[in-house]
Structures are given as C-alpha cells and as structure tokens.
C-alpha cells in the first residue's frame, strides 16, 4: 500500500515538473517582443519570395493556422493537450514537417553518442575516483585519476575544441567534423560504418574527458566517507584480502549514492552532448536546435526544450524506482 502511494506521489511529481516546464515554454514566447511568424516571413519577403503587400495577409493567415488568434486560455489548453500527445506543432522553417518528426529523425544520433559516452565516463570516473581515495591502492594507480581531476572544470565543448585542434587539425588523425565524409552516400557497408565511427571518436572523447573528472571527484569524496565507516574497518579486522574489501565493502557502498548523482546529472549530460554536436557538425538534437536558433524556428526550439525536459524528468523519476533494486535498505520500505 505504501509502495503504491509512493509510486503515485512520484508520478504526480513528474506531471508537475512537465506541467511547469510546458507552462514556462508557453508563457515566455508570449511575453516576448518578437513575433516568430512575422520575423520569418519578413525575411522571406526581403529575399523576394513575395510582395511585401501580401505580408500582413500571410502573417494573419499563418497566425490563424497556428491558433495565435484564439483567446490565450484556449491557446494554453490546446498547447497543453499537444504536449501530452508529444505534439509540439509544425516547424516554421521546414513547414510541413512537424517538430516531433524532426526530433525523431535527429534523436538516434544524439542517443547513440550519449549512451556510449555516459556509460563509459560513469564507469571510468567512478572506478578511478574509488581508487584515488583508497589508501592501499598502488601509488601509480591512484595518480591516474589526477589528470582527470584537473580537467574537471573544463566543459566538454572546450575539450572538443582542443581535440579538434590537436588530433584533427595538427595530427590529422581524425576528421574535423560532420557525421561522415563529404561526398560519401550513406549506405550499409563496413566502409561507411568505419567512416561514421571515425567521425564519432572525437566528440565521444570530448564528452568522456569532459565528464570523467566530475565522477572522479564525487566518487573520491564518497570513497573517503565510506572508508571511514565501521564496516570497512571491521572487514579489515576480519582479515579479508584487499580486493574483497575494496570490491564488496567499499566500492559497492560508495557507488550507491553515485547512482542518485547520475540521475541528477542527466540534465547536464544531455546539454553537454547537444553543445558538442553543434561544435562537431554532427546531426542530432543539438544541431537541430542550433539551426532552429539561427533561423528563428521557435516551435522547434520549444519542442526540443520540452522534449528533453520531459525525457530527463521521466528518467530521473524512473531511476528512483531502480534504486531499491540495488539498495536492500530501501527495498524494505
């Protein structure tokens, strides 16, 4: 019964978060001095798409189509019901395409990059952090973590620029950007897969180098706390070998709070990936966002923001339900 109540409460919380985020993205543009449609078509008019005289007519027609002439409350209700169906409307720039279409085309790229780099940096960072805080670990092994700690403050984007310069530009080992080489037509061949993989290495490295340090630091802090715990001491009194103590008593306990930290870091992780994409000209949500910003494609901007917020918030709440599976203390409650 209590479990059910807990699930319901977390679910309500999730709805509250999504509602807040959508309300923010609804309100802000409507307070904005800019009119997305006017700017868009004014640009087209300037470029000679049609006569400026027709501009006002077109704008009015478009506003009707986007429902902007309805009363605010009606707009809000429409908007919210759209959000519930993951319907974020149409793109202004690529008109007949819907926002969610564009997002789902870009998503696999971002997801692929994110999954690999996040898992790798979580594993590497936590292991290095745990070792760095473990007094009995060999000195050279503990020192491995140090360069990563020094890189903590450096955001993945800057890491990306440095990697581009040294590995891509100076050493010419890896391509300078893009998803695959220019002139190559995507196909299902090993050659193309290899080409694509080569283009993913630098952005992936940038993301990993940029986030390992954070895990090292928090895990080191956690490790220092855990190694002072009575059960770690008692494990040593029991005459256990170092590896068992490290793995079963120290690492397992220190890792638990890190999982919560992982949930909290999701937002940052996603943002980093998005920005990395725009630096490396990778197709994906980030590039979609940057293009939308450049072309004032507001529905796409808001759609992406909402989509990511909903995803991150849902994952965070989902993590809370995963947590009891790994911590017996919480499982009981």
């Amino acid at each position, binding site marked *: 019964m209590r479990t059910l109540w807990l699930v319901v409460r977390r679910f309500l919380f999730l709805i509250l978060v999504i509602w807040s985020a959508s309300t923010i993205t609804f309100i802000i543009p409507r307070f904005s001095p800019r009119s997305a449609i006017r700017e868009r078509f004014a640009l087209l008019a300037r470029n000679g798409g049609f006569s400026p005289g027709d501009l006002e007519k077109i704008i009015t027609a478009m506003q009707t189509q986007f429902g902007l002439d309805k009363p605010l409350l009606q707009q809000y209700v429409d908007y919210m019901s759209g959000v519930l169906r993951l319907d974020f409307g149409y793109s202004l720039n690529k008109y007949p395409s819907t926002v969610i279409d564009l997002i789902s085309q870009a998503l696999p790229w971002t997801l692929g990059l994110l999954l690999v780099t996040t898992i790798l940096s979580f594993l590497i960072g936590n292991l290095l952090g745990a070792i760095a805080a473990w007094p009995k670990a060999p000195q050279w092994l503990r020192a491995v973590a140090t360069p990563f700690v020094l890189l903590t*403050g450096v*955001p993945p984007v*800057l890491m990306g620029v440095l990697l581009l310069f040294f590995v891509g530009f100076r050493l010419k080992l890896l391509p300078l*950007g893009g998803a695959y080489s220019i002139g190559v037509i995507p196909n299902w061949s090993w050659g193309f897969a290899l080409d694509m993989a080569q283009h993913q290495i630098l952005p992936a490295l940038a993301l990993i180098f940029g986030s390992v340090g954070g895990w090292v630091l928090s895990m080191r802090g956690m490790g220092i706390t855990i190694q002072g715990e009575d059960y770690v001491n008692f494990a040593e009194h029991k005459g256990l070998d170092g590896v068992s103590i490290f793995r079963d008593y120290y690492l397992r306990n220190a890792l638990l709070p890190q999982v919560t930290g992982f949930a909290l870091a999701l*937002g*940052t992780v996603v943002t980093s990936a998005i920005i990395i994409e*725009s630096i490396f000209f990778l197709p994906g949500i980030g590039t979609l966002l940057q293009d939308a910003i450049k072309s004032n494609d507001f529905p796409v901007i808001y759609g992406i923001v909402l989509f990511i917020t909903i995803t991150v918030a849902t994952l965070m*709440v989902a993590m809370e339900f995963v947590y009891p599976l790994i911590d017996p203390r919480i499982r009981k409650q």
Partner: protein
Amino acid sequence: MATVVWTPAEVIQPSRPALLFRYIRRNKSLAIGLTVLLLLVAFTVIGFLAVDAKQAYPLAAPTKRPPSLQYLLGTDFFGRNLLAAMVVGMWQTAVIGVLAGGLGTFIGVVLGFVSAYFGGWIDSAVKSVCQILTPIPVLLIQVVVAGSLDKRDVTILTMAFIVVMLAWMGPTLVIRSQVLTMKERQFVSVAKLSGVSDLGIIFKEILPNLLPFIAAAFVGQVFAAVFASFYLAVLGLGPLREPLLGNIIWAAQTQGAFFNGWWWWPIEPAVAMILILGSLALVIMGLDELANPRVRRSE
C-alpha cells in the same frame, strides 16, 4: 597533601597571516586556482592599458592574419584583433560572472534565510519550487528565454540576467539547510531567550557564521554563470557583436575555422575559457576542502 594545580605549558600560536600562508601551501588547489585567477586579472588589466578596446570589434584590423609580432594572437574573419578581443571578452566574462554570481547568491541567501528561519508555508513553497525546477535542464530554459529576446536587445547585462533567472536555487538550498542546522544551535536559542529580535539574530548571530558558506556559494555561482553564459554564446544566443569568448568560438565554428586552417581563432578563446573555468573549479575544490576536513585526509 596539597592538590597540585597543573597549568598546561604555553603554546605558541603563529600569527594569522603565517597560518593562512601555511594553510594555502597545503591546500594546493586553492593556491593554484587563486594564482591563475590573479594572472587572468593581470592579463585583462594590462591588456586594457596596452591594447585599444576598439580593436576587439569587426573591421578594426586586416582579416584572417595568423599570430604575428604585430597581431600577437592574430585576427579573425571579421577583422577583429584577437588579442583585444581576448581582453574585452575576458572582462565581459568577468562582468557576467560576478554580476550574475553575486545576484544569484544574494537572492539565494535571502530566500534561504527567509525560508529556513520563518519556516511554515514560505518554506514549503520555496522548497517545492526548487524541487520542481531541479529536473528541468537549466540551460534549455535559458535557451528559451534568450531565444525569445530580440537579438539587438541581447547585451552583456541581459546575458547576466538570463543566467541568474534560474541560478538562485543552488545557493537557496545550501543556505537554507545551513540556517536550519544553525537555528538548532545553542547560541541562537540563548539569543532568542535573551530577547534579541529576529533581525538581530539573523545579522548578529547567524550571518557571521554563514559567511564561509556564502563565500563558497558565491564562487560556485560565478562558475555556474560563466559556464551558462558560455554555453548560450556557443549556441549562438549571445550578444553577437560582442567579443564574448563563447561568441568567438561560435563564430569560428560557423565559419569552419579548422577546415579553413584558421586554427588560432577558436583555440585562443577556448584556452582562455579553460583557464577561467579551471581556476574557478580549483578554487571551489579548495574551499570544499576548507569546509569539509574529511576530504583533507586523503591528501
């Protein structure tokens, strides 16, 4: 037999500056972080004296020159002298950081205080708002706000305000939890019992004890503000005319700087930013070590 009163031998306490110096020498991250920050400040100050700030704007110099004796850091596609751009960009980054960091900390301290000290519905309201906003990626909301502004309206000041809008939550929560624990301490109860007013307690008893936390929160906020404004600028949402470091990287990437061989253009602002964020991160780590002695043990 008389009881012998034992007086402990006099312990010689070293002077304060000496102690501080000794501590900083041991707290390496604080020492290195502060040193790099000072060097950056020196670079900016000397830069303003030595270089014409106008050179940081387009068409002030020949375009696309690699670093040379005349243009130490080269010039970019738009004819900006990158040395001047670095100086001005560094200064603007500092303005955003200190302004947004200061404002965010101030709001956080006030909200945290009010929420924790008076409790009740105010506390629940502040707490719930923070809880709901936590899962929302802050940068994305900032993207929405910055995107809604007319590009001509985006200045260094608006950048600072956009950044601060969602940045007060961290300090609010930190200060709130600190005030909550402090409220339970004896000296506050004693002050209350002896009739000191709420304001008196806040300013005379609690605030002085919170100063280390406020200082740490401030540095943390400066870091967050610099970080956020940098991300916005890299996405092309910054004040496009200004030589803000993120803007320069955005411009360089948009023009395909590496493809065209203009390597110095994106690298210079990137290195500058790494130095700024890195040194701030080191200072934060150092302050952590100061506040949480358990971390010290591992050194």
